[in-house]
């Protein structure tokens, strides 16, 4: 009933864009001479992307007929995901090799990519924005 391929395409698209953005920004900081910032951004972005992939893989669990089972399983899932995103923050606090602020900023890469993607499409291609990777045709 649920076409898994469309969600997988979206996940691949945003995951790839987030990683590309992180590598691009990280390389910029590396060239400017801030290696710890580069490591932090990439670390945060990797976990942000993995969290997004995890979300999309478990999406169908939230859409189940049994309400109680769905609630419990998605709440446990939520807690596990938050424990997972806590890892880079703890790593950045414990090891000065990773810049803490850059890691925290990196955790929001997927959100930034989603917002930027939509605003870009909406304001610059408002007429014929159905092109590109993020189309609303199945």
């Amino acid at each position, binding site marked *: *009933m*649920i*076409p898994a*391929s*469309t*969600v997988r395409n*979206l*996940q691949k698209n945003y995951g790839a864009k987030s990683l590309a953005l992180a590598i691009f920004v990280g390389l910029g900081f590396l060239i400017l001479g801030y290696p710890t910032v580069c490591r932090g951004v990439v670390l945060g972005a990797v976990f942000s992307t993995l969290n*997004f992939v995890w*979300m*999309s893989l478990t*999406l169908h669990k*939230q*859409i189940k007929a049994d309400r109680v089972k*769905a*609630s419990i399983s*998605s*709440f446990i899932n*939520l*807690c596990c995901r*938050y424990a997972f*995103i*806590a890892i880079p*923050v*703890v790593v950045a*606090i*414990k090891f000065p090799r990773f810049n803490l602020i850059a890691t*925290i900023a990196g*955790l*929001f890469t*997927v*959100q930034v990519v*989603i*917002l930027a993607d*939509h*605003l870009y*499409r*909406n304001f610059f291609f408002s007429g014929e*924005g*159905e092109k590109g990777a993020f189309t*609303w045709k*199945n």
Partner: protein
Amino acid sequence: MTLDIEIGVKIATFVGAGISMGMGAIGAAIGEGYTAAAANSALSRNPDNAGDILKNMLVGQAVAESAAIFSLVIAMLLLFSSTPNPQPITIWAYLAAGLCMGFGAIGSGVGSGFPAASACEGMARQPAAGRRLTTSMLVGSAVCQTTSIYALVIALILMFFDFTKQPFGPTWAALMGAGLSTGIAAIGPAIGEGKVAGACCEGIARNPSSAGPITNLMLLGQAVSETTGIYGLLISFILLFKGFAATPDLAPAFGLVSAGLCMGLGAIGPGIGEGLAASSAVSWLGRNAEAQPILIRSMLVGQAVSESTGIYSFVVALVLIFVM
């Protein structure tokens, strides 16, 4: 004695981190659950459009989660970063930071559930407007996150600014008041803004041709709903940086905590009320596009009157800080 203070600071970090993460997760869980429920009903209504609905649900939940990630970051910073110079004031600062971020994340988590839910339902009704719906949903839920960003800023100041030089006398109370003010004041505006964004998605689904005016009215309504949250932020900044004369008395200290509580609680009602007024105006703009100017006017008048009790709280908080 130093050992006691160290133990106290440890306890404060545990309690603060627990409150921050617990409340943040509750908000996100409610918002995501609401989205999932709406997506479920949308799927049953229009199974052919399942791909778009699921994509929208995923994107909406990913953005709605930011507030919970803020509180996660604060909780981890509280738990794992070391305190160089533990003092009695540090205990209060950490507790206040946890409370501030915890309360601040609830509203944003719940609030961003509304636009995501309405967008999923709208996509079942009007599949052609899908892209427009997702964009408005994202803008709406991004605005919902602003109050939790205020809470994040205040929590970070509470944790990393050095308050040890200031007299313990009323400063502990000023820090607690600052945390409560921004934290509790973030709940109402975020839920109200979420309601407005939800109505915007509903209106676009009903009448995709007037998506532009509807989105503009949504942003106007959200900006007005935000004001009481900004009062809370202002009171917090005054409490943090005014600098109070040392006093051993209880009364001035309780006055400062009370100022924070007053502004925090007082911002909830106007925030939600203004959100309700704006959401109704936005949703009726979708049905009756000709009435736009008159709807905007009556929305602003209604919101201005709802704002009054928030202003009373602001005034009482200022009196508690400056006159008492």
